[in-house]
């Protein structure tokens, strides 16, 4: 089975909704800044014709810039009172250490100043808070020297009379808002020393709006029962809604997407008059899973590598004895017009229990049961789990759901099988079908079903089908003229295509993404 990644639809669940600055107003809207500040802002704005920057407003009104940003947002919510444009500007700011230096001097200056004329033992100097950094900087500035051989241990002496603390001077300039006076290189050096940082400030350029006014009328957020009773709503203005925002998520449970698709396939079979088979038996004997289907005992599918065998309970008992003898004979000697496989058929092999590898094991049981009665035509279907001990990858798991349809009647033809498949796939929205000869041990003829994929512009396999072999049907006791046509496909593959999922583990099993389950749309296979 192959799934081409480019066949997948683009991710459907781009939950990333246009983000919007405000949620719709709700009860007790606390985001409204106090009216006094808003009115101050508006009065300030009245005096400037071409607008002003929110940072300047903050400086003028002596409040933090963030407070002004809040006020601007509140005013925006009132309609066209003001109009704004977002701006961002960069400016230099002192770090904590930078502020300390602007106040107390650079580490190297503090070290220099601490050294008396008769010098200072190095170990003492190093105990100063600025000791380590200040010492090396002062040394490289050649303000001080170290006498290692001094008696009583290494001692530090001044080498110059006075110094100029340029670092402090530069930082003070920045502090006063005059960073423009410094060269870029100087600023970057200070940044490297973690004394300066460049910050981006988002501000607003505020201008008067079309309905500018310096007074604020408080708008109502929501209609209340009291307003309706008193009729006061007629005099109120209401805060506008933000229709860009998402609504509150509905409080509900969700069905799993694979199960939604299963429901649709079930529906399709029921619409076509098919009866559901009892597939609630995961454990099956090799006899019903393989031998009854005329699948020889040396077939590779019966290998440990392909099938999960059961160690407990290891063996099945109680087979319909007459039927078992007929199955043994048709495998080992032939009969019913067949040459058989001519090998030594062993009951021990047929008794081995396994996890069914296909729901066709159930079809075999149903057809055997049907053969024990007076024959009436039947149409059967099932959708249930099957198990394969295969190599796992992004599209293969050890268990998956098989969809199977079976029709038994006198005189069914290969053309009839194609006709039923055409009807079935039309209900899935697939109308262009073609068929490729294939091999399957229990069907002859066998056909792979291909559909034309409009997106990929090529034919892709969508299922498998065939006419059950007489060596399977006649030993069961079905009348000679009865043909049984059948087809199968996996449930996971159409679901992955339908919901645009690339990795089967995101769909099936515990690693499922619940958000995907929550968000998955309803399933209409034909649209």
């Amino acid at each position, binding site marked *: 089975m192959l799934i081409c990644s480019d066949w997948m639809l683009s991710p459907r669940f781009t939950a990333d909704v246009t983000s919007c600055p405000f949620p719709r107003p709700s009860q007790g809207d606390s985001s409204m800044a106090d009216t006094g500040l808003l009115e101050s802002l508006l009065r300030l704005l009245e005096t400037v014709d071409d607008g002003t920057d929110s940072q300047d407003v903050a400086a003028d009104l002596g409040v933090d810039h963030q407070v002004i940003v809040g006020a601007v947002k509140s005013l925006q919510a009132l309609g066209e009172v003001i109009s704004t444009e977002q701006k961002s500007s960069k400016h230099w700011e002192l770090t904590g250490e930078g502020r300390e230096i602007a106040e107390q001097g650079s580490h190297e200056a503090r070290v220099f100043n601490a050294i008396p004329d008769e010098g200072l033992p190095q170990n003492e100097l190093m105990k100063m808070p600025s000791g380590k950094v200040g010492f090396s900087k002062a040394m490289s500035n050649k303000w001080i020297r170290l006498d290692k051989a001094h008696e009583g241990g290494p001692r530090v002496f001044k080498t110059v009379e006075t110094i100029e603390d340029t670092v402090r001077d530069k930082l003070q300039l920045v502090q006063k808002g005059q960073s423009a006076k410094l060269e870029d290189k100087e600023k970057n050096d200070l940044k490297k020393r973690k004394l300066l940082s460049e910050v981006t400030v988002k501000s607003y350029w505020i201008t008067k709006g079309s309905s500018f006014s310096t007074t604020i009328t408080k708008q109502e957020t929501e209609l209340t029962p009291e307003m309706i009773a008193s009729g006061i709503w007629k005099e109120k203005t209401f805060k506008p809604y933000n229709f860009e925002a998402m609504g509150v998520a509905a409080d509900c449970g*969700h069905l799993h997407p694979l199960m939604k698709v299963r429901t649709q396939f079930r529906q399709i*079979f029921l619409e076509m008059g098919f009866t559901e088979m*009892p597939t609630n038996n995961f454990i099956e004997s090799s006899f019903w899973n393989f031998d009854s289907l005329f699948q020889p005992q040396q077939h590779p599918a019966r290998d440990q590598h392909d099938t999960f065998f059961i160690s407990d309970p290891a063996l099945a008992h109680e087979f319909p004895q007459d039927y078992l003898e007929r199955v043994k004979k048709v495998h080992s000697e032939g009969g019913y017009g067949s040459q058989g496989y001519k090998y030594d058929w062993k009951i021990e092999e047929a008794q081995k229990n396994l996890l069914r590898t296909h729901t066709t094991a159930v079809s075999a049981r149903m057809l055997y049961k049907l053969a024990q009665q007076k024959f009436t035509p039947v149409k059967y279907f099932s959708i249930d789990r099957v198990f394969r001990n295969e190599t796992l990858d992004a599209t293969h798991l050890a268990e998956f759901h098989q969809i199977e349809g079976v029709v038994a009647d006198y005189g069914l033809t290969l053309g009839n099988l194609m006709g039923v498949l055409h009807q079935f796939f039309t209900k899935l929205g697939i109308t262009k079908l073609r068929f490729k000869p294939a091999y399957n041990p229990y069907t002859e003829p066998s056909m792979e079903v291909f559909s034309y994929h409009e997106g990929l512009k090529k034919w892709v396999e969508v299922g498998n089908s065939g006419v059950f072999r007489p060596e399977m049907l006649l030993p069961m006791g079905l009348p000679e003229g009865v043909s049984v046509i059948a087809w199968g496909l996996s449930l996971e593959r159409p679901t992955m295509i339908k919901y645009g999922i690339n990795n089967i583990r995101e769909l099936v099993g515990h690693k499922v993404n619940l958000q995907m389950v929550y968000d998955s749309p309803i399933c209409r296979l034909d649209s």
Partner: protein
Amino acid sequence: MPTVSVKRDLLFEALGQKYTDEEFDELCFEFGLELDEITSEKEILSREQGDEKAEGASDVVLYKIDVPANRYDLLCLEGLVRGLQVFKEKLEAPRYKRVSPTASVRPHAVAAVLRNITFTQERYESFIELQEKLHQNICRKRTLVAIGTHDLDTISGPFTYTAKPPGDIRFKPLNQSKEYTAAELMSHYKTDSHLRHYLHIMENEPLYPIIYDSNGIVLSMPPIINGDHSKISLNTKNIFIECTATDLTKAKITLDMIVTMFSEYCDEPFTVEEAEVVYPDGRLCVYPELAYRTETLSGDFINKRVGINESAESIAQLLTRMCLRSEVSGEGDLIQVEIPPTRADVIHACDIMEDAAIAYGFNNIFRSTPRTYTVANQLPLNKLTELLRQDLAAAGFTEALTFALCSQEDIADKLRKNIVETRAVHISNPKTAEFQVVRTCLLPGLLKTLAANRKMPLPLKLFEISDVVLKDETKDVGARNNRRLCAVYYNKSPGFEVIHGLLDRVMQLLDVKPGRNQGYHIQAAEDSTFFPGRCAEIFSCGKSIGHLGVLHPDVISRFELTMPCSAIDIDIEPFL
């Protein structure tokens, strides 16, 4: 499905016609083959080992063609070409002839001789490749049949097929410089990337099979290795082929395939020299069988099964195109169909019918709706499940879909249960611990789903209605499925009341009223999975159907969860 890799130009030369990739793909589709990949040695090398290694490799175009698993006659270039040429009516299917013997072998084997063969590099490679393909497919990785091919001019018959203790066998194996005993060889090949896969077939046998010629020269030690002495080369003129087997039918088919494919290159094409095989009981058989079989069937049978309306003559023509030489017998619409030794897959009239349909063209068959009248029925258990699922989602729970297979730990240790009490079905050949048992309850799957979605906003409310499997001696296979409903509530507080409320809702949906006798009720119970004093057993109409409660903190931590969790687990089959 086996894949055969052929050089495109060589293929087209043999077919006597050039195709575009699309045209050839189309031809394959009609014939039931699949042009899987168009590539070159260079491309394959560069993909597998990087561009550097691929430097200088051949960029001759290769077609990789998928062949149906039962068509051993299409496993090499020669067979493919013969099949397609006959299909396109450019060639008549050859007749394979057997001529008188010169060699004799003894017992349990089949053999044949190809006389005066002419190899070219390509033919030789194809010959080796076909043996490998047969070994992998019909020979089931040499377990059923092993093939040995030898330069007949280096050995002299009669040949003896016998068995000896590994210590007593000593010879120089193919492409080795010295002699080894069989026992030494088995350890020598343990590291051989190719041969080590076959050692297990013989490993524990007390005696190893071995073939000698009349001078005591070792031809082969099947199914492991041939002797170096008789190895074939490009210059080999006469080939002795032996197949040793545990399945005689498959050995005969294998031998037939090799000789029918490569007798094409003999001086007298399609002619094979036979070999007598004398069994220990004195029975004498002659191989290869090259058996032709004739089946008689009516045109009406084909028409009725396929759904077409062709004359017997045209059906005979269709079949002839599939290498099944057919003639109208003159009696009504009866057709005599001859099945050649290459078509071992044709074992019933239905196989002939399929070939007629393929030659007619599957996609030329009229698609008609059968008139089968039936009334649809749902399986009651699935109908109930579908209805309940809808309403559980409406009750605010989200459906999970978890695996039926899991580890022993999941259903036992992690739930504080003893594995013996679980009545679990055990898998004998799991590749990993995830597939040790079939689940006996749905709870572990739901808890693992919670663990994988811990970042989602709380509360998490999940449910699943699905089958678990329990051992049951009353069933023919010793086990049965049981349809269960399980739900969990995961939040900062245990929410027993939420899960209890869900039980009430489910019972309401099932039209069971609260009450001790005809209704449902819950009753304090002890269960190691649940927190002591926080678990109740659920009874409906006096019968226990499951449990609900707050999970034991150890269970929560063992599933890598951190919040309290309550759960309900009930059997829904009593409500059918």
